[in-house]
C-alpha cells in the first residue's frame, strides 16, 4: 500500500546461498540507523544452499502495519525462477533489479517498470569474491532509489555480517560501490 509519505516495499529473491536474507537484513539495518521505520520478513524453513530464499523489507517514515509485501515497489532478483515468481507482482512504476549473469532474457513487463540488468556475478568475480554478488545488486538498488545511500549501507556491514566473516568486509564494501557505479554509468 502507498501513503502520502515515504513507503517503499521491497522483495529480494534468489537461490539459498546467494546471501538473499543477509542482503535484506543489511537493508533493514541501514534503514533503522537512518531513523526510518522498517520491517524485515524472511522466508524460513527452506534456506538451504540451492533452495529458494526470499525476504520482504518495508521502509517507511511512518509506522508500518502489515509486514507482508503483496505488490512490491522494488524487486531484486538473483535468478530466473525468482524473476518468474515475483516479477508479475511488481507495481506499475516499480523498479526491477535483475541478475543478468543468470537471467538472459528481458522479461515482458508493464512499460512503466524500470529494469536495471546488472551482471552481478561477473562484477563479483572481478573483485575476487563470487559471494559478494548480493552486495553488487543491493549497491545498484541503493544508487537508484536514493532513500538510503550505498555509503550508509557500507557503514552497517560490520554489524550485519557475523564476526567470523569480518575479513570479507572490504570486498563487500567494494562490491556495494561497484553496484552503485554500475547504476550511475547506465543512467
Amino acid at each position, binding site marked *: *500500500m502507498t*501513503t502520502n509519505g515515504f513507503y517503499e516495499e521491497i522483495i529480494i529473491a534468489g537461490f539459498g546461498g546467494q546471501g538473499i536474507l543477509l542482503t535484506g*537484513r543489511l537493508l*533493514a539495518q541501514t534503514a*533503522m540507523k537512518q531513523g526510518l*521505520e*522498517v*520491517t*524485515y*520478513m*524472511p522466508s*524460513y*524453513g527452506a534456506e538451504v544452499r540451492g533452495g529458494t530464499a526470499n525476504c520482504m523489507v518495508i521502509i517507511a517514515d511512518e509506522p*508500518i*502495519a*502489515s*509486514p*507482508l509485501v*503483496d505488490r512490491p515497489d522494488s524487486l531484486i532478483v538473483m535468478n530466473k525462477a525468482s524473476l518468474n515468481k515475483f516479477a508479475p507482482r511488481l507495481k506499475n512504476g516499480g523498479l526491477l533489479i535483475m541478475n543478468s549473469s543468470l537471467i538472459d532474457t528481458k522479461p515482458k513487463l508493464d512499460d512503466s517498470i524500470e529494469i536495471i540488468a546488472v551482471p552481478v556475478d561477473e562484477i563479483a568475480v572481478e573483485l575476487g569474491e563470487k559471494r559478494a554478488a548480493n552486495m553488487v545488486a543491493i549497491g545498484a538498488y541503493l544508487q537508484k532509489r536514493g532513500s538510503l545511500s550505498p555509503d550508509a549501507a557500507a557503514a552497517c556491514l560490520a554489524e550485519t555480517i557475523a564476526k567470523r566473516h569480518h575479513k570479507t568486509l572490504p570486498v563487500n564494501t567494494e562490491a556495494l560501490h561497484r553496484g552503485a557505479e554500475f547504476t550511475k554509468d547506465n543512467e
Partner: protein
Amino acid sequence: MCGNEALAEAAIIAGCDAYFGYPITPQNEITAYMSKRMPEEDRVFVQSESELAAINMVFGASATGKRTMTTSSSPGISLMQEGISYLAGAELPAVIVNVMRGGPGLGNIAPSQGDYFQATRGGGHGDYRTIVLGPSTVQELVDCMPLAFDLADQYQIPVVVLADGILGQMMEPIVLDKKPRRELPPKDWALTGAKDREQNIVRSLWLPEGALEEHNYKLQAKYEQIQKDEVLCEQYALDDAEIVVVAYGVAARIVRSAVNQARKEGIKAGWIRPITLWPFPTEQIAKAADELSIFLVVEMSMGQMVEDVKLAVAGKTPVLFYGRPGGGVPTVSQVLERIKQLTIPPKKQ
C-alpha cells in the same frame, strides 16, 4: 534480532530464572538464544528430551518459586497440555510461548492462528483458564514478556503468549525496556525448604469429598478477577465506523493496512484488536455492537476468535468472517475486498 530472539532477551530482562525447551520450527531461535544467554547470566537452561519433559521441568522450577518459561510451536504445545492443566490446578505461575504454525497434526511450519481455541479454552483437561496474550508487533512481543511473568506471579497462573511464525521470524526495531513493573505478592507458597516454618504443599490432587469443588470455586473467583482487571485491547476509528474489523496478532496488522486503505477510499471502517485473548474484551466489543452496523473478523484460521466476537455481539448486529487456514495469510487486498463487499448496501437490518 528476530522476534524469537527479542522475546528471549526480554524474558531474561524480566528475570526468567530457568528456561526449558525442545526445538521446533518456527521458534528454534528462542531455544538457541537461551542456550547461549542463560548460562552467561548464570541461570538455568535445559534442552529437554521432549516437550512433556520441558513442561514438567517448568512445573518443578515454578514450585520452588522461580520465574520459569518454556516455548514451543503448535504440535509441541499440544504435547504440553497435560502439564499446563497441572500448573493451573496447582496454581503455579509459568510463561508458555506458542509460536504458532499450521495444523492440524504436524501440519507445516508456516504462520498460523489455528491454536486460538486451544489457548483460550484452557487446552488441557479440567475447568481452568490461562491468561493469553496476542501481540502483533515485535515491540509488543517484547513488552509482553515482563507482563506475562508479572501476571503469572500475581495470579499464580500459567500465561500463554500466542505468537506466530511471522512474528517469530520477522525483524523490526525495538527498545528493550528495563523499568521495574508491578508490585507482586511474596511467594510464601513456594517449596523452599520447610526448616523453621510450616510445610508448604503444591498439588493438583484434591480427593476428599467437596474439596475439588471448593478448589474450583477458588480458581473461578480468580478468573473473574482477571476478567475484571486485566483486559487489554486497542481500537481505531470506531466513532463513525459502519464496519469494524476485529483481528489479533499479525492478522491485525494486515487489517490495519486494509482499514487505512478503505478510509482513503471513503469507506467508514474501524478496527478492534484484542491484546488479551483471554480475558477477552467482551465489553468493548459489546459496546461497539450497540453503535455499529457490521462486524468482520479476520483470522489466519477457519474461524475461532469469531465465536468470542459473536458471543460479545450477542446477535445485535451481523458478524461475518474471513480467514485462511494451514499457513495461508490473508493479504491486504483480500481483506479490503471483503470490507468493500460488506459496506456496499447491506446495512442495519
